[in-house]
Structure formats: C-alpha cells, structure tokens
C-alpha cells in the first residue's frame, strides 16, 4: 500500500508546527483531566481522615491479589504502548499495530478482572450507598469508603474504555500504513492518554488495595 503524504492543515506553515500544536494540546488536555481526578482524591482524603477505622473495614473486602494483577496488566500495557510509539517512528507500522492491538487486549483483561471484582463485591454486599436500606447499612464511614471505591474505579474504567478506543483507532491506522515515520503524532497522543489512565490507576491501587 502506498504511503500517504502528510496532510498539512492550511492554518499551519510547517508540519513541525502542526505536530507541536497537537502535542501541546494533548498535554494541556491531560492536565485538565488530572484535575478531574484531583477532586475525587481530595474527597477520598477528606473522608478517610474523617472515618479512618470505617474505611479500614470497607476496604478489607478488596482483594489485594486481583488489584495487583490489574496493576501489572496496566503497566505492561503501557510498556507495549511505548514500544508501539517507538516502532511507528522507525516506520515499522505493522509491528506498531500489533503492539497497539496487544495493549487493547491488556485493557480488556483489566476490565474483565475488574468485573470479576465487582461481581464479588455485589456478592458480598459491598455496595455504594444508595443500594442499602437504612436498616441493614454498615456504619456511615464504611459505606462512604465503598461508594468512593465504586465511583472512582468506575470513572477510571470509563477512561480505560476511552483509551482502548483511541489505541484501537491508532492500531487500525498503523495496520493500514496511514501512520508511520511520516505521521505518528496520533499514535503518540493516544499513547500519552493511555499513560494517564495507567498513572491514575497507580494512585488508585495503593488507596484501595494496599493501604488498608
């Protein structure tokens, strides 16, 4: 398949400027996304200080092994994404496509493990607040611990799905040789997004699985 020429948008004078703009936009956007999670981390900190013992009780349900497996899965996926970015720059687009596909598969593995965990929580009745009737609810602080766990991991899960879509699009582009040495900014940017998803999880992991 012939390599397509890079499309230079009319408002840019050079490809370098165009790529610089795309990269800058992604970094600024990631800064903005970080603030979205920062609000939740602030809530977690505030409630944890309020109810230290209850949080301990709430998070005792969480399976450290499953959480750690997911951490390893995500870190590995970040590694394969980084490799994909490396190879697309070297014009090895097929290899990059393969690595991106692998990363999507890791993302899927992460979600499957997460659903196994959620099913287990539902089984043990470790639910967010609204699911309880007042009579059988555990102490308020424990309920809040579970609510935050559900909300934060679910919001992170949505970001995993968004990241998988981006990586998937990049993978298809690489497989069709639309991205290569001549044009890799989209691959790079989806990779950056995936690293954000990874980093957020790196913070969630100790909060919900290690610091019990």
């Amino acid at each position, binding site marked *: 398949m012939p390599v397509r020429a890079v499309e230079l*948008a009319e408002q840019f004078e050079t490809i370098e*400027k165009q790529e610089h*703009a795309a990269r800058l936009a992604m970094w600024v956007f990631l800064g903005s996304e970080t*603030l979205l999670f920062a609000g939740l981390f602030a809530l977690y900190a505030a*409630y944890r200080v*309020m109810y230290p013992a209850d949080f301990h009780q709430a998070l005792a349900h969480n399976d450290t092994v499953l959480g750690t497996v997911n951490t390893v899965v995500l870190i590995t996926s970040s590694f394969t994404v980084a490799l994909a970015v490396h190879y697309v720059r070297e014009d090895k687009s097929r290899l990059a496509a393969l690595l991106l596909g692998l990363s999507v598969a890791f993302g899927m593995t992460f979600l499957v493990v997460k659903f196994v965990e959620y099913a287990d929580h539902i089984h043990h009745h470790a639910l*967010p607040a*609204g699911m309880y009737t*007042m009579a059988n609810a555990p102490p308020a602080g424990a309920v809040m611990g579970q609510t935050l766990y559900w*909300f934060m991991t679910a919001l992170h899960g949505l970001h995993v799905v968004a990241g998988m879509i981006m990586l998937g699009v990049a993978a298809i582009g690489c497989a069709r040789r639309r991205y290569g040495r001549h044009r890799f900014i989209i691959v790079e940017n989806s990779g950056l997004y995936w690293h954000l998803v990874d980093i957020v999880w790196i913070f969630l992991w100790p909060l919900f699985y290690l610091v019990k």
Partner: protein
Amino acid sequence: MDPRGVGATHPDYMRAESGVRSWLLTKDHKRIALMFYGAVITFLMLGGIFALILRTELLTPETTIIDPMTYNQMFTLHGVTMVWLFLIPSIPAVFGNFVLPLMLGAKDLAFPRINLASFYVYVASAIIILTAMVLGGADTGWTFYVPYSSTSPTAVTWMGIGIFVNGVSSIMTALNFVVTTHTLRAQGLRWHRLPLFVWAIYGTSIIILFATPVLGLSLLLVAADHGLGLGIFDPRYGGDPVLFQHLFWFYSHPAVYIMILPSFAVISEVVCTFSQRPPASYRAIAYSSLGIAFIGFFTWGHHMFVAGMSEWDAGVFGGLSMFVAIFSAIKVFTWVATLRGGSIAFSTPMLYFLWFLFLFVFGGMTGVAVATQSLDVHWHDGYFVVAHFHFIMVGGALTAFLAAAHYWFPKMFGKLYDERVGLLTSVAVFIGFVFTFLPQFLLGNAGMPRRYYSYPPHFQWLNVLSTGGAWLLGAGLILALINLVVALKWGRRAGPNPWGSRSFEWITSSPPSKHNFDVTPIIERTPYDYHLSEEDARARSRAS
C-alpha cells in the same frame, strides 16, 4: 498593499460560500463565532425574560404574577442560563473566536474541527438544560447546594448533566485558544507584542482548563446523588455537604474570573483605540491577568465563612480574596493612566468603558467588603451579595460585551451602526442597571435575604425601584440589539479601520476574507504604536 486591507481582493467570509450547509459545517472561526453570537444572544434574552418575570413578581410582597414554586424554578433557570449559557461563553466564544486569530495574523484557530465541535457540544448542553426545564426545572438555585439538591423532586440530574456537557465545550474552546496562541503567531509577533486582548483570553483559557473539570466532577456527583442515590454528600451515609461547597466553589469562584477577564480583554483594546494611546503599562495589564488567574484558585473559602470554618481559615481566605483587588486595581489605574494626554473619542464603545469602570470599581470595592469575615456574616445570603455579584458579573461582563459588540461590529460585518442611537442605548443600559442593583445593596444591608418570594412591606419601595430599573435595562438592551440589526442591513459601509486602531485585526479587510489574510503578515511593531502614522503602522505589519 491594498489600502482596503490585506485580503480585500477575495470575497469576504460571509459571501465566500453560500447555503445553510456551508454555515452548519463550516470550519471558519469567523462563521463559528457568528453562530455562537446568535446562540448567546438568544440565551441572554431568555435569561433576561426570566429576570424580568422575577423582578415583576417582587413588585409586591405577596403573589403578583407567579406562584412560589415557579418562582424558585425561575431563579434557578435565570442563574443557570446567564452563567453557563451567556456569561462564560459570551466574550471568548464570540469575540475571542472571531478576533483572536486575526490578532495573531493566523488563518484560523489551531483546531478548526474542535472549534466547530465545541459549538455543537454547547448547543447539546443547552438542549439538555432546556429539556430539564420542561421536565420541571430545578429549584435549587444555580449553586446546587446539597443536601437539598440531592433530594429535590425537580430535574436536578438532567440539569447537572447539561452543565457537565457545557463544561466540555468550554474546555474545547479554551484548549484551542491556548494552543493557537502558542503556535500560530505571525512571524515577528513575540509574546510582548501580543495585543492585550490575547493575554487576557489566554489567562481565561488557563482558568477554564483547570477549574472546569472540578466543577464537572462536583455536578456529576450531585447528579449521581440525585439520580442514583449515591450519597457522596449525604449525611445519612457519612457524606459531608460542606465538602460539596468546597469542590463547587473551587471552580465557581475562579469562574467569576472566567466571566470578568474577557471583559478586561475587551476594555484594554477599547481604551487604547479610543484614546489613541499605547497602554500606560503594557506589562502591568498583561501580567495582572495572569495574577488574577492564579490567585483566583485560592479564594473559594470566602463563600463559606458561615459554613463552619475556623476564624483563622476565614481570615486567610479573606486576605487572599482581597489580593485579587490589588491586581484589579493595577488594571483600573493603568487604564485610567492610559487616557492621560490621549485624544479621547466618546463613541459608544468608549462610553461603555466608562460605565464598565464605574460598575467594576463599585462592584470590586463591595467585593473587598464582602471578603471581610465580620461584614460577610451580616450580609451573607442577602441582597447585598446579589447586588455585589451582579455589579461585577453583569455590570462588568455585560457592558464589556456591549462595548465589544459595537467596537468590532465594523470588523465583523463591514458596516457602521448609528452612533447617536448607540450612545442613547448605552446611557439607558447604565441608568437601568444602576436603578436595578443599587437599591439591592440597601435591601441587603437592611436584611432582605436572597431568593425569597416575599418580604416585609417596608422593603417595597426599594423593590419597586429595582423592578423599574430592570425594565429600563431590558428596554436599553433590546434597543441596542435593534440598532445593530438595523445597521447590518442599512448601515453605512465601514472602511477596513474606521476607528484608526493600530491593533493587528484591523490590517485585514472588514469584513475579512475567508482565510483572513492573503499572505501571512510579518509583524515588526506592537499593536499600540500610536506614535506611528497609520501608513507607517501598516508598513511595519507588511505582508511577507
């Protein structure tokens, strides 16, 4: 160079293509700006109608035209419409979109598709908010304080989702402005040659990018509390309602600066152009915008002096809040100093500048008073606060919006409006405004709480004054709109630079051609070189 301006050899952006499709799918920042223009004016009118109904209801202490529940829903809708559908997008999305690329000598924004998408996301958010209104509205006020908002029987979930979507649109626009300012400046256009408008829009965009996600999150949590019973802020499940206030105001106080910084942007341009002088200190105006953007993030606590905060904390937040006044004062003094020795033209935008100056300084001074803990305890949740934030947010942002609408009218449409009607409507708007909100300071100081449907009879005369003022303000606004619409059709043709400005957006033709400039200009001067003749100034921003 063509004396009609760079780009005059091509058809202008409105005639370059025709048909509804060419508008709805356009990626031209100028057409997108016009679509935003139509939308925000529609919502200004909608919010204004709500305001007039509210004020008319308050003519008498008892029921005048609507029942209490409708009143509660209407003040919520008034707030939501004005804040998120008018004040926040108005100047950046309309005038920022239109003139920022022109000022940078760029052909468009960095991401035209994202720009168009941000318009449609904005429209989607408006549709969700209006749907929520049809589904019963919300009766929580625009601040959505829990625990009431999580249990209110009205459509809080939809309202929250609508505002979240609106935030996405703001972030898209802001991202575009930041990246455009970094990457699409014309050759020779160094940071210290940027028009002051660009600096202030840049500062605004940074606040939007870092504050809006926190707001989005807080309202998403309220929507989840309301819709799913998640209870994150519900005391029954261990939640703390005060935490919501912290999160909400962490965004919403900086949001006040999102509303006012673009006004500073407009005012800086108007002052220089109509006094034919460079700013008394370019750097003071430029950097104070960034100072406000930064300090704005450390002031949220002043909304919560009575919500269980230690005196020490309140003192710190009060002090930090007052810090903003220093940066604002730097701006005000610099604008006033700019006038000194200038050849001042009292045209409509300049008149709006004077109103702006009065209302902003008055609103700002009362802001310093409200930031004082002891005074705030007396005025808290009363009409004094209502009057204060209307002076800043409406008096400041609305007069600046009107200044911009008149100032850039010839640039956007190539026509001149009727100056006498412009001056008349400007005076009507100012007098109407003062009569609406000055009595509210007195009402608040005397103890009338905000949002109340009824009041003791001895407050009536002040309420009548306020309502009369509101109707005059409304009439002034409608007349201003009619004046501009009439000028669209019958206005005299404007040259490329009718005000004799040196700023870069005026070097292209009016209205500009589709790609703004035939060739990208090279800029070898500042945008305020009034010591140069217009010809010399043109020569130093020559085409490459």
